[in-house]
């Protein structure tokens, strides 16, 4: 059984936009509502959209499972690693060691009305990116595992 051509085509067209929007939510987590988990969930929804529109057995081969595993572990490692790095610098666990350092994400937050500076907030964006990568991989894997037992009959 297949969805109609309209559904399949519009899912294909929507997919990149969903992914881009998810990545936007991840990247701007520290200055707008949203963050790593929300963005990652949005990206995973893109994968779910494609799987629902096409039959699961048709798309199965196209999904890079190894990459998703790597994302799942790598995202969490980045998260913990960012926390541990502060410890190696002599501060407590999860110390915001990048804030106001002048390097990556290290600009001081401007005072007064401003459109929101992306390059601020120290390692919070790093955390968001790490969580985003992890949730992207993890939730997609959850969807895949739930569908992996689905037989041809459809349950």
């Amino acid at each position, binding site marked *: 059984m297949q969805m109609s051509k309209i559904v399949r085509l519009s899912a294909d067209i929507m997919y990149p936009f969903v992914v881009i929007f998810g990545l936007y939510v991840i990247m701007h987590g520290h*200055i707008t509502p949203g963050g790593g988990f929300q963005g990652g969930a949005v990206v995973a929804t893109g994968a779910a959209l494609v799987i629902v529109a096409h039959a699961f057995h048709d798309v199965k081969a196209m999904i890079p499972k190894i990459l998703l595993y790597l994302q799942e572990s790598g995202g969490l490692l980045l998260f913990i690693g960012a926390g541990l790095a502060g410890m190696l610098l002599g501060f407590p666990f999860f110390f915001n060691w990048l804030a106001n350092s002048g390097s990556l994400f290290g600009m001081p937050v401007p005072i007064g009305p401003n459109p929101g500076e992306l390059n601020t907030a120290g390692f919070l964006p790093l955390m968001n990116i790490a969580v985003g990568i992890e949730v992207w991989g993890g939730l997609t894997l959850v969807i895949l595992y739930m569908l992996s037992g689905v037989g041809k009959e459809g349950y």
Partner: protein
Amino acid sequence: MFANLPYLAVATLTVIGLSTVLLKRNLVKVTMGLNILTSAVNLLIIVLGYREGGIAPIYTLAPQTYMVLPTPQALCLTSIVIGVATTALLLSFTMVIYRKYGTVNVDEIRELRE
């Protein structure tokens, strides 16, 4: 009256959630009941942090400093994330059980008793 409306919603959701959990015999519906209960608590937490007339707690471009409390929202986000994991795990269990037992009726899922 209107100030208490959210609390009424919390109470209603709690009752709906509890009765769904206890009265429905379908495992998927029990999971949904637990989700409704979680939503009730999340709503309660958000409502506790709400201040009438307050704005979103973002200092960028803020017209005033009278804001709603950000901590309850952070708590609520964490609890939503935990809720997602919980739901995913419960539904996977339900799927495995359906595949092995051929039923999702809680009255029939009782191989382990006594």
